[in-house]
């Protein structure tokens, strides 16, 4: 990874150039160049093993890329002396299996990083947590433990936890894949609201309905490459990439 001295000319909320990643001899990501524009919802779709979740985890360096650059606004995250923890605090992430902290109350799940990373006092953090929980319809559950909530409720807490940090970008890694079908709609509703409120979002999803309606652009990945990126209309109605056509015929 080389550190560039100057940010790229066109500012994007998140910009990736020439990103590659391998596990041993298995190449997962090959020379990915993509940006997430400020305020847009970018959906990443593709078959299992196509590298979309790995790409998402590279964006906040939960996975370390082998080569390439990642820029968050004017900050190069892949620079040798980048403050990765500070950058992560600016990027919210929601996981497939929620990953709430089971030994803490719902409220403490949301306030933990506010106090431990942002240095807010407990009361200030509590007020912010309750506001965020109210936005996802769960203020009444603040004192519960995550295990006492349904999967859909847990995922909404996880969204509130990420939003409480007031991130510049939100990453969603198959946020509804582990949910029972009847619980998916509430989580998607929260994500739609966020998108229409102007949050910059990168969303790995198998929910083609969500990608079609809520995304500004849809990126199709296969075999670790970015095969196609376009508006939902063009991706879903006028797909000309053979692998994309094949994928859509299987999932739609």
């Amino acid at each position: 990874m080389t550190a560039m001295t100057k940010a790229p000319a066109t500012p994007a909320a998140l910009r990736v150039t020439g990103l590659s990643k391998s596990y041993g001899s298995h190449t997962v990501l090959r020379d990915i160049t993509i940006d997430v524009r400020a305020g847009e919802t970018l959906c990443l779709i593709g078959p299992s093993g196509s590298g979309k979740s790995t790409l998402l985890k590279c964006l906040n360096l939960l996975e370390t890329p082998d080569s390439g650059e990642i820029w968050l606004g004017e900050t190069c995250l892949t620079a040798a002396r980048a403050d990765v923890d500070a950058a992560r605090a600016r990027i919210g992430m929601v996981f497939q299996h929620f990953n709430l902290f089971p030994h803490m109350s719902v409220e403490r799940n949301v306030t933990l990083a506010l106090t431990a990373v942002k240095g807010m006092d407990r009361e200030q953090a509590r007020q912010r947590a309750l506001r965020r929980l109210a936005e996802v319809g769960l203020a009444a559950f603040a004192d519960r433990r995550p295990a006492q909530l349904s999967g859909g409720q847990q995922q909404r807490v996880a969204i509130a936890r990420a939003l409480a940090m007031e991130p510049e970008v939100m990453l969603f890694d198959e946020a509804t894949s582990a949910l029972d079908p009847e619980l998916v709609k509430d989580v998607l509703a929260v994500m739609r609201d966020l998108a229409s409120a102007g949050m910059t979002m990168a969303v790995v999803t198998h929910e083609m309905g969500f990608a079609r309606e809520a995304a500004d652009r849809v990126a199709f990945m296969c075999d670790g490459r970015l095969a196609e990126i376009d508006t939902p209309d063009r991706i879903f109605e006028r797909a000309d990439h053979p692998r994309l056509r094949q994928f859509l015929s299987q999932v739609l």
Partner: protein
Amino acid sequence: MDPSSQPDPASNALVNTFFNWDLIAQTFPRLITEGLLNTLTIAAGAIVVGIVIALLAALLLLSHRWWIRLPARLYVDIFRGLPVIITVMLVGVGLPAAGIRPFGTEPFGYAILAIGIISGAYTAEIFRSGIQSVDPGQLQAARSLGLSYLKAMRLVVVPQGIRRVLPAMAGQFVKDIKESSLVYLLGLAAGQRELYFIAQEEVARTYNSSPLIAAGLCYLCLTIPLTYVVNHLDKRLREGPKGGNPPAVADADVPPTPVSATAGVQA
């Protein structure tokens, strides 16, 4: 006279040697007033020393770098592999003889250190297995929020790992209490004597083993309730406190209110 009505001299001797109630009753006051407190002090001290060493060693054992793991691995293997009595003698007699006297001539401190070092070696492996059993997604979620590795471990991963190994820790605490009796080897001044030392003095004085039964009863009064208390704590942590809110049913989701446009957008 019917010989069967005569008490059997052999069984009489057996009962007298182990269950001489006069001797047991005579030993109990010292055991309770002096021995119990000293045993508890040594055991509690060793447990605290052991936990501190174990936390550090467990974190080293979890490193991806072999040269960080190596000192912790050597420590664990050596002190789990040595007989307890050798470690107690090396620390309690060897250190002062070599001029290393952090506790002066006080055997109490050396006893706590020796048993703590042994306890730490066992507890380190217990902690390591507990921490490794925590879903890696927990560390990822904590790191994704901006927590440093050490903060994420301290606040998120380690507390969960330790909760999972509470029953194994209870076993270790029981071992520490029992091993506190080895301080006997180091010699103790009046007022410092723990349960076994007091019982052994009485045995030497009376040539009767009943005081050991009395001391044994005192140990059991400590070890058995401790196991149950820790298991109860473990159960409570798993199931939540009594009278807590019942788990929400899956279809009881409250419809979310729309997320406000100020929800963290800095576009």
